């Protein structure tokens, strides 16, 4: 195949084009909607991106290992409902509730691991099955899908969403901690190195003596458990458990991960890239909102950014 040649200066431009577009968007929104640049609004963008960031980081880990997880929504919901059960039915303090949330979501991850590693089902289909099963459990538990409210929530738990540390909203703090944790895990540890090797060439990883199955199992359990923190934030914010609420984060998380991968020199999923992808989606949603444009445009624009980023990455591959 003869690919058309691109001038030499194009490659670095393409590599950073996504960041350039993000800056252009920021400039555009701040001119068009003066309220956009207000510090409270910028904080709102971060705050509203916190849950998505947590879920997208989990997705980044999974995609880096060569898999995909369609059941992150179930993990979020299980996190939320386990926390609420601990608080409401057992009167547990907030930290026990968080622990319950992590454990509940880890169950979802463990089930995925069983299907994928134990039974050899491909991640796409295994997690699709988990999604169906988990969604059904929630409907049954809530008698058809109605939310479970818990108005007199313990303040300590409530603060996980409503509180702040030195003026920084708690959600942002939690998301930032998760961000740093995932960065260290994927980019700085032996575990992360092995996960990348598995995601790139599972056979070569196996020949190198890496226990591929064990690593994949840990990846799915860890990712699901971290999604529970998203569920905790949702539960604390709304003071209720909303069945199937987590599902709305799935596609955005996948999109953010691949937007992020498109800025990597070798097109690999990576933590800084995922942060950029999440911010991209957050800025677009917020900006459209302020401009008073149809909110339904948001999906279209997100989709355009995703395919645009991938197209740019493809061009970059061609430019060498």
């Amino acid at each position, binding site marked *: 195949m003869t690919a058309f040649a691109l001038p030499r200066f194009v490659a670095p431009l393409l590599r950073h084009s996504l960041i350039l577009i993000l800056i252009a968007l920021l400039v555009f929104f701040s001119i068009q909607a003066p309220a956009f640049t207000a510090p409270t609004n910028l904080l709102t963008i971060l705050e509203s991106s916190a849950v998505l960031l947590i879920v997208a980081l989990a997705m980044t880990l999974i995609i880096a290992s060569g898999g995909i997880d369609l059941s992150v929504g179930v993990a979020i919901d299980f996190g939320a409902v386990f926390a609420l059960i601990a608080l409401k039915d057992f009167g547990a303090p907030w930290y026990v509730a968080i622990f319950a949330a992590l454990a509940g979501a880890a169950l979802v991850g463990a089930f995925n691991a069983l299907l994928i590693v134990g039974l050899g089902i491909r991640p796409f289909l295994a997690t699709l099955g988990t999604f169906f099963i988990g969604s059904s459990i929630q409907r049954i538990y809530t008698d058809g899908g109605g939310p479970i409210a818990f108005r007199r929530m313990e303040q300590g738990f409530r603060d996980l969403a409503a509180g702040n540390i030195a003026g920084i909203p708690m959600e942002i703090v939690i998301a930032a901690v998760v961000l740093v944790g995932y960065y*260290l895990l994927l980019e700085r540890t032996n575990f992360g190195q092995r996960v990348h090797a598995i995601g790139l060439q599972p056979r070569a990883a196996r*020949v190198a*003596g890496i226990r591929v199955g064990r690593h994949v199992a840990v990846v799915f359990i860890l990712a699901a458990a971290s999604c529970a923190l998203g569920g905790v934030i949702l539960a604390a914010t709304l003071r209720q458990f909303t069945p199937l609420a987590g599902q709305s984060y799935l596609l955005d998380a996948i999109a953010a991960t691949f937007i992020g991968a498109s800025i990597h020199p070798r097109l690999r999923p990576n933590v800084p890239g995922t942060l950029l992808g999440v911010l991209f989606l957050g800025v677009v949603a917020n900006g459209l909102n302020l401009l008073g444009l149809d909110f339904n445009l948001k999906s279209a624009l997100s989709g355009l950014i995703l395919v645009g980023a991938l197209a740019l990455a493809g061009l970059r591959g061609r430019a060498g």
Partner: protein
Amino acid sequence: MPLPLAAASLAPGLTLAMTGIVKTFPGVRALDAADLDIRAGEIHGLVGENGAGKSTIIKILGGVYARDAGDILANGEVLAGGAAADMHAIGIRIIHQELNLVDHFTVAESVFLGQERTDRFGGLAKRRMRREAEAFLRDVLECPLDGQTLIRDLGIAERKLVQIAAALIDGKARLVVFDEPTAPLAAAETGRLFNAIRNLKARGVSILYVSHYLGEIVDICDRVTVFRNGRHVAVLDAPNPTRTDEIITWMIGRQLDDLYPAAAVRTADGIEAEPSFAVERLGDGRSFADVSFSLAKGEIFGIAGLIGSGRDELVDGLYGLRPPATGRVTRAGRPIRLDPALAVQSGLVLVPRDRRRDGLVLDLAVTDNINLASLDEVSTAGFRRERRANARATRLADLLDIRPRSVGTRAGLLSGGNQQKVVLGRWLAAEAEIFLLDEPTIGVDIGARAEIYRLVRELADGGATVIVSSGDAAELIGLCDRIAVLVRGKLVEIVRCGEISVDGLIARTTDAAGQRVAS
């Protein structure tokens, strides 16, 4: 017996003269002015070592590769083009080594796949296809089969015949090229294939028969061309079993030079006195069975065998990639579980034959590939220490003379020889004791080969046990202390290198005496 069916008719054989064929790939001259001359209606054998140019010339005949230079005369007429369509049009059909049949298709569907007969309304003429397929298999290939049988219910020899029928059913085949047709077959099944091939010859079709099995070559062929290093070196008329030595000499045509390092003197007793690794009656229930041998520290042990001899499966089994079904492996007298991760932990490591797929993570840097199996030693509490990782990788890259020197280079960008050194470097970093080298010098240029041989000898002299599985007889003889010969899944003998010539080893692996091991 009357043969009224159109399907059973075949076109007259092709005379094909290829002269001065040249084909160059980056860094390799695969064919260097090679000649190949096939007469109408003969069975012509083509033999040569790995890399002699046999597969390249088959691909040129199939139109997969275009020749860089050289003439092809088909029945005396110059063939200008060389595309797949041109080759097909003059009646050349390639029977590839791989079967490429769909398991749940019927015999008739498989034979007519891609060339379906239609009725006058454009629908599939199923009954007619079934009848023609059955007639062709029965009359031409002597293989009566029900056209409705599913491929997965057939034996391997029958599948091979279905594959042949599919290539010839259009009746326009004039030269049929068989590429290692018996490689997947058990001994008893080869007879059926030979009958079919002789039948084709009797009907006037020209045949090019490419095989490593010299016993078969002298059995079935009218003439034999020997390739070596991309050239024809001999054409033998009327081959017979007494001439296999002559063929082998032509195939090798060189003395073992100082490509191989000298071995430290080691007595036979020394090897058996200190067993470090023993394999007892190992079998996978399919490709190899009842394999036993025992190795000493400091020994280089070769495994010789052709494609399909079970050599690859044995190596994969020893490393636990495909756990064997029967038998056991002991390390210093104690049985070990066969699993790659456990193997690496205990110091048994594999340098795989497909290094780009299984050996390296191509997208990772050289340093990451070298450290991949022993990350804990260049880290603190699970956190990577880049400086330590790079320092160790650089030290090994220097030791092994890996080029380019920068360990930050992606492994995928290195040449074959340097990639192989990276894999070796990984196992040196992991302080391995038993090295399983599978085709260690495939795709490695001659200079890097000598370096790898020297390195392997140094490993052994340093007390490591090395197992080398290779299809290159000269390599095994030059490098190993002892060599196990696998023929069709059986370990037929273990020979000492001082006591066997390259010819002798090839004669054993190619089963030149024709004494096929019954399975």
